[in-house]
C-alpha cells in the first residue's frame, strides 16, 4: 500500500518536472489564434500541424547541418580521445598525470572564452562560417571528457588480455586496434553519445563562428525564429520539439550510458 502511494507521488513529481516539455509539445500544436487565449488551452484540442509544416519547409537544411556537425564531432572526438585514453590507462608514460590534469582544467574553461579566441583565429584564417570550423570548435567541448571516460574505462581492462596479444606478436598499435577498442564498446558509445548531444545542442560556437554561414545548425534556426517572427510560437515550439528528438531517442535506447556518463565525470578519478 505504501509503495503504491510512493509511486503516485513519484508520478506527480515527474509530471511537474516534465510540464515544460509537455507545454512545448502542446504549444507546437496550438493554432495561432488560440495562442493568446486566456486561460491557455491545456490540451491541443482543435490543434494544427501548421508549425510542423513550417519546420519541414524552412528548417530541414538546419537539421541536416546539425546532423553533419554532430557526426563530425563524434568522429573527431573518438579518434582523438580513444588512443589517449589507452595510453593514459595502460601505457602510463612519464607526464601522463600532468596531461590528465590539463584535461581536467580544460573542461572548466567557459565556452564564451573559447568562442572569442576561436573567432579571432578563424577570422584571420578565413574559416568563419564553415562546417569543419564548427566541428572543430564543438569538439573542444567533448574531447577532454572523452579522454577521461576512455581512461577510466580502459584501466578496468585486464592486463592479461593485452599480454596475450603481445605474446602472439602484436605490436602496441595492433593491440589497441584489435583488442582494446573492441572491448571498449561501452566507452565508445558513451563518449559518442555525449559528443553528439553537445554538438547538436551547441549555441555559443554556432552563433559566434557560424552566424553568417550558408550552413547553420538547428540551434541558430530556432534562435532566428525567436528573433524574427515573435508571433509564430507554434512553429518555434515545433522546431524545438524536432530539435529534442535526438536527446529523446538517446535517452530511450541508451539510458544506462547516459547515467554512466553523468556520474563518471563526477565520481571516477
Amino acid at each position, binding site marked *: 500500500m505504501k509503495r*503504491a502511494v*510512493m*509511486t503516485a507521488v*513519484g*508520478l506527480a*513529481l*515527474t509530471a511537474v*518536472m516534465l510540464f*515544460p*516539455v509537455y*507545454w512545448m509539445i502542446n*504549444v507546437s500544436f496550438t493554432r495561432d489564434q488560440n495562442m*493568446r487565449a*486566456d*486561460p*491557455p488551452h491545456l490540451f491541443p484540442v482543435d490543434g494544427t500541424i501548421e508549425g510542423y509544416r513550417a519546420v519541414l519547409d524552412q528548417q530541414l537544411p538546419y537539421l541536416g547541418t546539425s546532423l553533419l556537425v554532430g557526426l563530425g564531432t563524434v568522429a573527431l572526438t573518438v579518434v*582523438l*580521445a580513444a588512443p*589517449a585514453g*589507452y*595510453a593514459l*590507462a*595502460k*601505457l*602510463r*608514460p*612519464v*607526464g601522463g598525470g600532468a596531461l590528465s590534469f590539463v584535461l*581536467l582544467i580544460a573542461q572548466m*574553461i567557459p565556452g564564451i*572564452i573559447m*568562442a*572569442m*579566441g576561436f573567432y*579571432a*583565429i578563424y*577570422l584571420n584564417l578565413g574559416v568563419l562560417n564553415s562546417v569543419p570550423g564548427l566541428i572543430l570548435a564543438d569538439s573542444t567541448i567533448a*574531447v577532454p571528457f572523452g579522454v577521461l571516460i576512455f581512461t577510466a574505462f580502459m584501466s578496468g581492462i585486464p*592486463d592479461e588480455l*593485452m599480454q596475450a596479444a603481445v605474446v602472439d606478436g602484436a605490436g*602496441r598499435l595492433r593491440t589497441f586496434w584489435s583488442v582494446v577498442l573492441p572491448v571498449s564498446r561501452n566507452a565508445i558509445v558513451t563518449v559518442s553519445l555525449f559528443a553528439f548531444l553537445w554538438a*547538436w*545542442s551547441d*549555441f*555559443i560556437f554556432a552563433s559566434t563562428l557560424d*552566424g553568417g554561414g550558408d550552413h547553420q545548425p538547428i*540551434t541558430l534556426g*530556432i*534562435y532566428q525564429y525567436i528573433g524574427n517572427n515573435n508571433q509564430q510560437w507554434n512553429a*518555434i515550439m515545433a522546431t*524545438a520539439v524536432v*530539435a*529534442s528528438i535526438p*536527446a529523446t531517442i538517446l*535517452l530511450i535506447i541508451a539510458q544506462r550510458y547516459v547515467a554512466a556518463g*553523468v*556520474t563518471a565525470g*563526477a*565520481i571516477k*578519478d
Partner: protein
Amino acid sequence: MRRSRAYGHRGGWAAWAFLAPVTLYLLAFYAYPLYRNVELSLREYTVRSFVQGGAPFAGLDNYAKILSDPTFGPALLHTVVFTLASLAFQFTIGMALAVFFHQHFPLSGTLRALFLVPWLLPLIVSASTWSWMLNSDAGVVNAALGAAGIGPVNWLTSPDWSLASVIIANIWIGIPFNLVVLYSGLQAIPGTLYEAASLDGATGWQRFWRITFPLLRPVSAITLLLGLIYTLKVFDIIWIMTRGGPTDSSTTFATWSYRLGFGNLLPAFGPGAAVGNLLIVMALVFGLIYIRIQRRQYA
C-alpha cells in the same frame, strides 16, 4: 586505480605516440585560443586592426575599463546571486529526489530516467520554452498565478524579476545532474547501516541527518563544486531568455562578455576578452579546489 606493471612499462615513446594527437590538439585548439584571448584583452583593438593586425599594446587598460564600467558591479552581483541561488535549489531538490527515488518503489527506475530529460534537451529548446511559459500576457505561469488570485508578473520584462526568471529556468535544467550524481552516491552507502538504525528506533528524519548526510558529504562536495563551475559559465539560457536585460538586470559575466564581443554593431573585443578572462580566473579557482578535494578522496 590499479597499476598495470607487467603490461605497460612506464615511459616510452609508444605511449606518447598515442598521446601525440590529443596533445597537439590541446595546444592548437585550447592553448592557442586562450592565448589569443589574453592577447585580445591586452591590446587596443578596433574592427580594422582586428582583421588586419597591428593593434597597439594597451597593457591593463581594458581591465581598468571594465572595472570602472557601471555594468561591472551589477554583473558581479548577478553572477554571484545566479550561481548561489541556482546551486542551493538544485542541490536541495536533487538531494530530496535522490533520497525519494532511492526507496525503490514500482516505476522508480523509469521515473528517475524521465527526470533526465531537461538535462538532455538543447539549452535553446529549454530557454525558448521557458520564455513562452513566462510570457507576461499569454504565458501559462501567469495564467496559473491568475487562477490563484495573484496578479500578472512581468517575468522577463521587469528588471525586478528577470534574474529570478533565468534562475528558475536554470534550476530546472540543473536538477537532473544533482539527482543522478547524488543518487549514485546513495547507492554506495551500505544498506545494513540503515537496518541497524531502524532497529535502534531511528526515525526517517534522523536516518537522513545521522547517516545519509554525513556519508554523502564527499559526493555532495563534488556535486556542488562541479555545479559551481558549470553555473558560472551559463550563457545560453540567460542570453536567449533576456539577453541580460532589461537594462542589465540579468547580466552576468558570461553574457556581458558575449555582448561586448558579439552583441553590438561595434564589437569591443578587448574589454570582452578581459571580462572573459576574469570569468576564467573565477572558474579555475573553484576548479583547483575541486581537483584538490577529489584527489584527497580517491588517492
